[in-house]
């Protein structure tokens, strides 16, 4: 098998706050292969967004990556300096966020924001073959360079299905609809043809019909560009339509991961089953929607053993005392639960 595009090993991102150390990401390992979509699922606060920000090297203060490796295309991003990392951001890895209204700068025109990353990363390609003073003599105001970036941006807006892209380039974000803004974010993210796209709840803020369109668009572009995608969501519906593999996170740790079909058909972790049971399905009146009881524990004081034991219907003293390790219980299917086998036998999913 070829080397994965992204290979994260034992990633630990901790926040040092007045109230103690918060282990937002605590020893997470996973890989994303070329052209593949990995879904990261969990409730809010489980560390899935922080995992993405760690990959981008944008962990906010007072957090930092304390341990682990993040290998993108064979390079360990953790070891790169901020300067080098900047050349990677937007070019080899890009990220899109949940709310396109707050993610686009309200006071800058769409065109400015789309061309920005193209100009940063493809600055040289946009210019002529001449260098230095000769280039400057040929294009003293950078007009030609700017024009090329503009052309490329237009092309991207067309690709993401924006009608009358030339007009949209001159608009401000608030003048566009939510779906349109999300398309523009995708255009910005893919404008430099990154190897990896991190999508943090890209459809959560949108209407259901628009959601489907955006997922469809991402799917089409993935085929076209061969981008690997890390899709972060709390919605198993989105996952089941779009992902090849799934990773379920709880309290900063991976509790289960595996191929999509395996997870959907044979969920091994009680938490995964809880999540699956809590989605309403159309035309399935027999199944009752079962919300997961209890609250996500405070990340300041996690239980010594399995962090899910406070909410787990199967938990016993062993669970509370000993932390379960990830075990492989099927082809590529891993789970961190002492009761995985027992759960399958009970068969209450």
């Amino acid at each position, binding site marked *: 098998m070829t080397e994965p595009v992204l290979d994260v090993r034992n990633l630990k991102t901790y926040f040092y706050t007045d109230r103690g150390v918060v282990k937002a990401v605590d020893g997470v390992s996973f890989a994303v292969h070329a052209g593949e979509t990995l879904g990261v699922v969990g409730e809010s606060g489980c560390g899935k967004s922080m995992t993405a920000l760690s990959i981008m090297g944008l962990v906010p203060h007072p957090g930092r990556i304390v341990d682990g490796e993040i290998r993108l295309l064979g390079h360990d991003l953790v070891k790169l300096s901020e300067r080098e990392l900047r050349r990677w951001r937007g070019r080899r890895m890009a990220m899109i*966020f949940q709310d396109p209204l707050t993610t*686009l700068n309200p006071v800058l025109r769409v065109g400015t924001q789309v061309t920005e990353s193209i100009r940063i990363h493809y600055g040289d390609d946009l210019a002529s073959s001449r260098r230095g003073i000769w280039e400057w003599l040929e294009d003293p105001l950078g007009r030609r360079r700017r024009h090329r970036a503009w052309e490329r941006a237009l092309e991207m807006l067309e690709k993401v299905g924006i009608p009358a892209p030339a007009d949209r380039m001159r608009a401000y974000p608030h003048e566009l609809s939510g779906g349109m803004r999300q398309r523009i974010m995708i255009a910005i993210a893919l404008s430099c043809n990154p190897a990896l796209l991190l999508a943090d709840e890209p459809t959560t803020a949108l209407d259901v019909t628009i959601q489907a369109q955006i997922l469809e668009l991402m799917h089409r572009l993935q085929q076209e560009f061969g981008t690997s995608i890390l899709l972060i969501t709390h919605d198993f519906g989105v996952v089941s339509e779009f992902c090849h593999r799934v990773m379920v996170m709880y309290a900063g740790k991976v509790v289960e991961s595996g191929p999509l079909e395996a997870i959907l058909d044979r969920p091994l972790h009680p938490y995964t089953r809880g999540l699956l049971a809590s989605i309403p399905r159309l035309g399935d009146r027999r199944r009752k929607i079962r919300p997961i009881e209890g609250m996500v524990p405070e990340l300041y004081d996690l239980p010594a053993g399995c962090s899910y034991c406070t909410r787990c219907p199967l938990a016993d003293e062993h669970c509370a005392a000993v932390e379960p390790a990830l075990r492989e219980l099927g082809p590529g299917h891993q789970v961190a639960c002492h009761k995985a086998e027992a759960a399958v036998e009970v068969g209450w999913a």
Partner: protein
Amino acid sequence: MSAAQIINRFLQLIPVVIGVTVIVFLLMHLTPGDPVEVMFAGEAGVSAEDLERYRRELGLDQPLPVQYLRFVQGLLRGDLGMSLMQRQPVRDLILSRLPATIELTAAAILISLLIAIPVGVIAAVRRYSTVDKVGTVGALLGVSMPDFWLGLVLILLFGIHWGVLPISGRIPWGMEPEHITGLYLVDSLLTGNWPAFWAALRHLLLPAVTLGTSMAALTMRVTRSSMLEVVHQDFITFARAKGLSGTQVVWRHGLRNALIPTVTVVTLNVGVLLGGNMIVETVFAWPGLGRLVVDSIYNRDYTVVQAAVLIYAITYVSMNFMADVLYTILNPRVRL
């Protein structure tokens, strides 16, 4: 903002400006005694008939509304009345003093923005850093400090103790550059008169810093607090995710947004600057409009005071109008 909206906003100014002229007009009629008495106070050999004749000449025998209309008519013609003491048109007096005040005020605004905006931005981006702490304490001192006292302390230190900067006037006598705009810095630059430029700059420094301090303090505080809000927005993270450097993100994406509230607060505080103008010009013997007002008060030259108050108010109103226009330019989400 479309032209129609600007015109609409402009039309809203009219009632305010009319109100301002009414108040300024009434100010004159609160004076103890009337202008004619003030004019001839202490002069021997003026009979009651003479006073009466003057009153008629100045229209002071007419009812108030008529006098107000005449006052407004005069204003529209650019006639601000006669100075009671100097016996020359108030307009000429004011015009001769205006360049000095414009030069001082512009320099004060420039200095305060040049200090306050970078410090405010850095303080917000590097929160709890030395810049932040020094800036915050400095801003607190700046808003709490009476400007006349700050001026005197600067005079004591730079003028007397170290003796490095001049402490009064605009320029040494006889060094004035050829009159083009009346702004010494501009005129000396245009005529290439470097000694005059240097002298004018040295004279300008202390008064401009004194006048600009309180404004710098206020501006720094607003810039800092609005920047603090901006740096936590999603679009800042997204801009960083595009591969922009921290500096590019702060100045291109952050500042544009942070400036929107700053502009409003800064222009509201231009009023503080215009008032402080009188104080600072008095402290530094700066021959501008503020000094003229203070002198005229001592001389009971009410027409000059009246005209100057009017000019300050109109300036303030028009600055606020410009701020509104600027606000909509900076903030595309707002359409008036």
